[in-house]
């Protein structure tokens, strides 16, 4: 599996196939037991400077204000406090949270917290943005709004994105390329190029296009087998245990 610079790559696959693990290996948080991860031709040995990660659950520090959370990245990297805070204010404005700088994360809605996390991830100007089901916990409407905003922000700096999701529609609407992973030992099963033109406009509208439906149908064919297989594996596991005991 290869992701080109500036490419938006979505990864779909059944639960437990190792989508998230793949991301942590790219991020340098985990080592691969087999095979290698390379960024720009160099094997990954630790956490790289050009990588940002957006987690499935909130990773905001609850005791820091929204502004403090966004300014964290530059501050860790030794940027002077004043310019880090100015940057953080700019980014908060860009994700539509001007005026919320002094709030604490628990005072915000789920969607707003995701915006903070997005600003915190992008402020380091990553060349690689890793996203692990970032909008999984949001309601459908908020998710659509966040997806639109993500595309707009991505378009400005064009980092390479690896976006892990369960939601095939979300994957097609956002990505240049959808990777389907297999169940059990997670390997790449198939890669689909998404030839929908950019800018895509609203992710809600795009779903009704004919090409979208065709792609969805095609990828779902491939994904369905894996989902069924993964389901069979988990369903038979307790039975096998029963036989052993």
């Amino acid at each position, binding site marked *: 599996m290869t992701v080109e610079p500036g490419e938006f790559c979505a990864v779909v696959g059944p639960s437990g196939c190792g989508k998230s693990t793949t991301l942590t290996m790219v991020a340098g948080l985990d080592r691969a037991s087999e095979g290698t991860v390379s960024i720009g031709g160099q094997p990954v040995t630790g956490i790289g*400077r050009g990588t*940002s*990660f957006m*987690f499935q659950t909130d990773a905001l520090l609850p*005791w820091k204000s929204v502004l403090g959370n966004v300014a*964290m990245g530059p501050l860790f990297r030794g940027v002077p406090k004043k310019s880090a805070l100015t940057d953080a204010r700019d980014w908060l404005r860009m994700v539509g949270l001007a005026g919320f700088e002094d709030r604490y994360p*628990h005072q915000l809605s789920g969607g707003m917290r995701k915006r903070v996390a997005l600003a915190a991830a992008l402020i380091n100007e990553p060349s690689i943005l890793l996203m692990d089901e970032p909008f999984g916990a949001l309601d459908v409407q908020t998710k659509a709004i966040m997806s639109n905003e993500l595309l707009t922000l991505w378009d400005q700096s064009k980092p390479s994105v690896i976006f892990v999701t369960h939601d095939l529609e979300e994957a097609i609407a956002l990505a240049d390329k959808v990777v389907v992973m297999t169940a059990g030992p997670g390997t790449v099963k198939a890669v689909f190029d998404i030839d929908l033109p950019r800018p895509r406009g609203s992710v809600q509208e795009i779903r009704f296009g004919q090409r979208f439906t065709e792609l969805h149908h095609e990828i779902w064919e491939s994904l369905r087998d894996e989902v069924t297989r993964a389901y069979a594996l988990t369903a038979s596991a307790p039975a096998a245990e029963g036989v052993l005991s």
Partner: protein
Amino acid sequence: MTRRRLRVYTAQAAVFVIVFGGWQLLTSLKVVDPFFFGQPSGIVQTLVNWIRHGTSFGSIWLQISVTMEEAVIGFLIGTAAGVLVGVLLGQVRFLATVLSPYIKAVNALPRIVLGELFIIVLGLGIGSKVVLAGFLVFFVVFFNAFQGVREVDGNLVNNARILGASRMQVVRSVVIPSAMTWIIASLHVAFGFAVIGAIVGEILGAQHGLGVVITNSGNNFDTNGVFAGMIIIGAIALVAEWLISLLERRLLAWRPQTVAEATAA
């Protein structure tokens, strides 16, 4: 003042009147012997006497300040050491595993026994009490800090690392603030232990302090004196508790209000 709060204060006053009024009444009627059980009026008299004429060991303020000095210094040293060692062992798993049986063994010792040792080594002065108080505080704070560090959300740590935090930065901006809830919770108990350490140290051997005053009263069968000493210690503990709650509110201001706090306010 809300009605709810008014009711709480009224009930608190009622408890005071019932306990001390009943005590005064029963001892006046000789239902219980005031020689063994003391008497509120006698306790007040003793307190007034101490304030006016001082104790056999000098002014009462001197005794209080000596005990407080021992307790506060011990509290500060014990807390600092507890947080430091707790965070260190929480971070370095190897060290924690190696030291674990020793820590458990020392913690299981009745620490009062160590008071004797400290007095032999450090003498009858303030040093031996400070060390005993600090020792008692250390274990309370240490176990909480250690647990707090272990409970830190791995997501937060990973996020900080990816954002570019060094190991020290992770400890400073994620681990310690995260463990702070646990550490602060332990401080309430820890200050009580600091006072215990100071008083016990004084009882074992000292020239000044509330512990000395209380033992002396006890040796003279002066029950009112013992109770008066206890009341002073109780008042000190209440003030300390109030100060720690203030600190807690300041340091943990970011926390969402809990249901209990919301209904109490």
